[in-house]
């Protein structure tokens, strides 16, 4: 680790150092990014224990295969990709072997059917109900929404992380938001089910009706 006055090595330098045999380099890389990686994992999987296992598996995978990192993308993008793939693998396995109710009340399977309405608002705070609606989305939509809407990654970076086109990310996010809007009762003219009818402040009421069609990119 650098001493006083030295600049901390960049992520790519740490990867190179790890591949070259520096025993501390990968640990430093993990320390730098683990919180964000955890946030993605836990929101994508929807279960803390499974998310922890997925994150651990993913980091072990990255540790072992670091030499394959070619530098085509940022190290964080590469790490996120591995983590998200580990999460999606677990969700697919869960889907193949349904279904045990999860501790947070979300369903154990990951069926791609239309979402059911969230639990009655009076029993949950907004965040919990929103998390449940998020957990009920199909895995691919959920992963895209977690990256773009929850974590704030640009659509372009989410596309690289998930290995799909930007248009696919936009579509997955849009369809996921629509499902959640229906599930949460966020449609205009309908009392929402989150937090006893409280509609969070946002840009929801100002979307103009298109005369033709203005550009509505997420970012």
């Amino acid at each position, binding site marked *: 680790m650098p001493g006083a006055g030295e600049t901390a090595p960049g992520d790519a330098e740490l990867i190179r150092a790890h591949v070259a045999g520096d*025993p501390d380099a990968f640990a430093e890389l993990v320390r730098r990014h683990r919180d964000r990686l*955890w946030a993605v994992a836990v929101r994508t999987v929807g279960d803390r224990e499974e998310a*922890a296992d997925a994150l651990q598996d993913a980091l072990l995978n990255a540790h072992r295969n670091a030499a394959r990192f070619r530098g085509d993308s940022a190290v964080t993008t590469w790490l996120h990709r591995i983590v998200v793939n580990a999460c999606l693998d677990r969700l697919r396995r869960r889907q193949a072997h349904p279904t045990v109710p999860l501790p947070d009340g979300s369903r154990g399977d990951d069926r791609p059917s239309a979402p059911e309405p969230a639990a009655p608002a009076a029993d949950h705070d907004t965040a919990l109900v929103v998390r449940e609606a998020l957990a009920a989305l199909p895995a691919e939509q959920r992963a895209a929404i977690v990256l773009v809407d929850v974590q704030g990654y640009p659509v372009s970076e989410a596309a690289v992380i998930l290995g799909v086109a930007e248009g*696919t990310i936009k579509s997955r996010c849009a369809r996921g938001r629509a499902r959640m809007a229906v599930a949460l009762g966020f449609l205009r003219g309908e009392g929402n089910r989150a937090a006893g009818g409280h509609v*969070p402040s946002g840009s929801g009421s100002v979307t103009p009706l298109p005369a*033709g069609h203005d550009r509505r990119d997420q970012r």
Partner: protein
Amino acid sequence: MTGAGFDGVDLDLLADYIGGALIGTPDDERIGALVAEDPVWREAYQRLAPGMATVGATLRDLPVEPMPGDLAARLDSLFVPAPVAVPDSSVTDSDAVGESSNSVPAKVVDLAEAQRERAAGARPRRRVRWVAPISVAAGVVIVAGFGLSQLAGDDATDSGASESTAGGAVPMIAMAPEIMQSGFDYDATTLSSPPATIGGSRTAQSAEASAHNDGLSAPDSGLSRLLDPGLLADCLEAITRENAGGELSVSSVDYASYTGVPALIVRFTAVNGGWAWAVGADCGTPGGDADALQKVPVR
């Protein structure tokens, strides 16, 4: 997607339109025209677009969920380098070679090094090294004094002999792993409680196998790839991942079969207890898993 009173409207397409996913496609104009001219689509748009925007805002406002402390500690333990064994010059060859069932085997193979060598395209070294507890993948699998004595090509130890932990330089080894080639056909019962006779097969096998290459004959069963220390390390690493119980302490490995299928029987303890796993010949293959055939807890 339909429903929520949107009969006659393809909500997925409408959502794509609202989310900008149709830009540059023929559907963009088509859906735009429907929204502008068709009352049903117009109403659906007016209801859905604000709702989607509200969902986006709500998701951005979700509270951050901090990483649990125990997970952070687990990751630290995985990737922070383990302490290095300090050579104890007071340990003599004879001390170390005179192994007992409670000590580190006299000859051990550094699986991590074998893995690195294989990755570099080299053949695994046959020369025996004395090692401290072996760390594969930076502490993922610790195979304490893995007793692959059959891989020894030369009983004369190199200078690393003094690195043996037999003298207690690093008292991390609880037991000496057994390497067996029983050929026994296990089932769930015998996997959990192996017959007493199996333990004795090692000696016989070792003696018989001594005529072969490095001491252990390749099983006829297809398990021969797992004689390679590097591939065996990959297999143990795969078991570690799949077990998800942290560090693995292997007590025995038996080249055998499980209900007629060639299998490596691995007995180990981890944070989640004692286990006996039967894994197939594809255990630890690149991109693969442990190829587990059966897993039973052992008390």
